[in-house]
């Protein structure tokens, strides 16, 4: 089965979207961007293909007449088993990478770290059990938080330096992340998952095996995002993220005329025509104030998780006016306001409004807001940012339809995938003509 892929190599995460011959989305994958961009792309694509195979399994089950409820249950359990097997695989690699490092550190580090890793493996099934919630699906975050928790205990028990234990992990995780994936990883994990499920039906087994063994052949790829210059792609397969976001938003919401994308380090205001072709754009220059990282910084300052900011800000009854969108100044303003006794939610509400005000200026300079308006990027998941945006859009441009897709983080990758698909169809066409 042939497919093409679009990859968006962002400053924080790398996303991949896989399309089939009909141009339909087969799968989406995401990973944290790391020092080695090539590996980040590889992992994102591998994740998208895993997602695609789960889609194929569902198709097979459907073909065999399995009802929706059963399908959902079966796939959920299968995926949990799969993620667990994948996690254990990675733990294994972590162990391999840590061994030489602990040997250098000397006694009793091999024993201490070995103990932590064994502990992590033992409790892994809880992480991926039914109904379990994880703050992140990236191995770095998952393993990191468990390792740190256990290291604290081990350091105390064995009277070891906690910092040294953490240092060993930090070194090893870089190597784990840049580990090339082996060809049979999917097969191995799916087999493990299958043997662990309690759905013992022939239909289920056959569906998984058929979908799992389908040959997937990549016929095209297009890259975009900040890291695109370093992608191992020929120049003609690289597109600007502005074009990709425009086209991706158009594909998700065909009525889109204006797109606002607030990512980790840049904000883009884009105007598109009815075909999704970009007609004008503006982006932040030289300074990333008012972007996603700003929220990350504020979260750190307040000792909160990034995902907690929005809900807390939404509780505000009286938003505090924050003047500065400069991340550093905002931090100072935040501390000052707190010391004056302002409520955290009121300050946070003001900070969200400050970000959106900056985006409003970019929107105005790009040509304003036309109906429909699509909001993408990581910040689109933040309800306080969305609330502030809605209010300001209404005040400045009147009633406008606001689209936010739950898959908005994949907008750029989707646009890139569509470019790749167009190229694929074009070369097919040319082949037909020349034949």
């Amino acid at each position, binding site marked *: 089965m042939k497919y093409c892929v679009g990859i968006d190599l962002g400053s924080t995460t790398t996303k991949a979207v896989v399309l089939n011959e009909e141009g339909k989305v087969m799968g989406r994958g995401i990973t944290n961007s790391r020092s080695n961009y090539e590996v980040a792309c590889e992992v994102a694509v591998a994740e998208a293909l895993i997602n695609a195979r789960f889609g194929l399994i569902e198709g097979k089950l459907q073909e065999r007449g399995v009802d929706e409820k059963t399908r959902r249950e079966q796939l959920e359990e299968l995926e949990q088993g799969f993620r667990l097997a994948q996690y254990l695989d990675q733990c294994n690699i972590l162990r391999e990478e840590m061994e030489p490092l602990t040997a250098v550190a000397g006694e009793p580090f091999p024993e201490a770290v070995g103990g932590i890793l064994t502990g992590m493996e033992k409790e892994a099934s809880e992480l991926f059990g039914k109904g379990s919630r994880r703050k992140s699906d990236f191995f770095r975050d998952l393993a990191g938080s468990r390792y740190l928790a256990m290291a604290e205990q081990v350091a105390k028990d064995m009277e070891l330096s906690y910092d040294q234990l953490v240092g060993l992990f930090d070194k090893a995780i870089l190597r784990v992340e840049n580990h090339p994936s082996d060809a049979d990883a999917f097969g191995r994990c799916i087999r493990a998952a299958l043997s662990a499920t309690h759905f013992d039906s022939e239909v289920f087994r056959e569906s998984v095996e058929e979908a799992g063994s389908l040959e997937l052949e990549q016929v095209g790829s297009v890259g975009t995002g900040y890291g695109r210059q370093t992608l191992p792609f020929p120049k003609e397969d690289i597109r600007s993220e502005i074009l990709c976001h425009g086209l991706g938003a158009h594909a998700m919401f065909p009525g889109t005329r204006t797109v606002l994308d607030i990512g980790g380090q840049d904000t883009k205001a884009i105007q598109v025509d009815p075909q999704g072709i970009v007609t004008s*754009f503006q982006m932040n220059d030289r300074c990333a104030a008012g972007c996603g990282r700003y929220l990350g910084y504020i979260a750190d300052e307040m000792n909160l998780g990034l995902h907690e900011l929005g809900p807390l800000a939404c509780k505000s009854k009286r938003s505090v006016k924050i003047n500065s969108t400069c991340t550093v100044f905002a931090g100072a303003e935040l501390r000052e306001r707190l010391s004056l006794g302002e409520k955290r939610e009121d300050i946070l509400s003001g900070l969200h409004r400050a970000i959106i005000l900056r985006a409003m200026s970019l929107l105005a300079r790009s040509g304003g807001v036309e109906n429909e308006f699509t909001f993408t990027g990581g910040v689109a998941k933040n309800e306080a940012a969305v609330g502030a945006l809605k209010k300001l859009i209404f005040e400045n441009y009147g009633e406008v339809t606001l689209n936010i897709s739950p898959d908005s983080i994949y907008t750029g990758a989707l646009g890139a995938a569509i470019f790749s698909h167009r190229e694929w169809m074009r070369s097919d066409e040319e082949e037909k003509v020349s034949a």
Partner: protein
Amino acid sequence: MSSKNQQAYGQEGAAVQKDSSQLRQKQMIAAHYDRLAEAEKTGEKAVYTFVPGNLTELMLTFDLLPVLPEINALQSGMRGKSRSYISAAEKLGHSEDVCTYVKCDVGMLKSGNVGPTGKHLPDPSLLLLSYTGCFTFMKWFEILKQEYDCPVVMLHVPYQADGKITDSMRSYVVDQLKTKVIPVLEEVSGVKYDEDRLKGLLANSAKAEDDLVAVLEMAKNKPSPIDAYFGGVYYIGPIFTAFRGTEDAVEYYKLLRAEVEERVRLGKGPITPEGEMKEEKFRVVVEGPPNWTSFRKFWKMFADEGAVVVASSYTKVGGVYDNGFRHDPERPLESLAEYCLGCYTNLNLPSRVDMLERYMDEYQADGLLINSIKSCNSFSAGQLMILREVEKRTGKPGGFIESDLVDPRYFSAANIKNRLESYFQMIEQKRMGDAKAAEEKEEVQG
């Protein structure tokens, strides 16, 4: 093409550039700065003045040597000196928002007043302020007056608010030339005003202007033999500075014109930092000055994408000649007045929009790109309006980037490259979309 061939192209390109007009310009500039360096010994007097509205022929009539602070500033930017000059000016209290040409110039002055060729520049005997639209010029010379304690003469050129030059505007300027500027020049130089000498110089100017216009208009060819922005800034060098009216300038432009005509004959594209451009993919019109601190890098970002600038407003800041204006020996002071009144910086926004729209049509450009200068308060205002209006009139996409003249802190390479690439891809997409629409229309009609 093999890398060996590419190299050969590059070498050939470099050879063409160095052998003829480029080399000649270099010699002219070096000789001028040598003369300036010797001025304090030879007793020759220097007059500081600005590029837009410069009265070079008039200064030369009195044997005065022109010094152009903006040119020194941009040269400092290209030679990597501007960062320290700007810091020196900031130490003296000039704020971050001040025009970076001014800060670079002040910093250079405070660092020994060593010019672009590494030689000392003489103090001014006069500051000749021909005011043509940039209000910073007045403040700049106020600062220099304090530093040098020398006389200042200001020629007030009325802004073309209604987009045309009236008789009263012209005579207002001519009167000032007669009653203010010329008497001061006579006094400073000790030379009597000789109108016949001025006429001779103006006749030379007109010849050089004819050739310059011919060179710039050759960009209407496909492929364009020149880059009218990055290459263009070299072509305007002599005529915008100390050489307008000289035999040297006449010779230079004759030579340049012949070279470019030859490129047209051979169907060659422009020479870029990467050698000769192989394929012209995009033709754009640019508004705003280039960035000087990363000039080559900036140019390369265009060249790498196959983008050629076919016309630019920046190459008109020291004189608009492609609308038919020429210095006229028969009407010496009147034509100098018209020259000042007609400078790009003295045009109102509607006239600038008309001019850029005309360029888009006549040069068959794919779009208008604005490089907005962060520290320029005079000319950044209104640029988005210009962009939208030209887009509306031509239906061609506009692009907007931001950088600075000579402050390297304001050149964010990754960001500018990102925007430029997006812009060129946007043009390409639009072009493909238009072609598809035309095809479909044909199918429907057929």
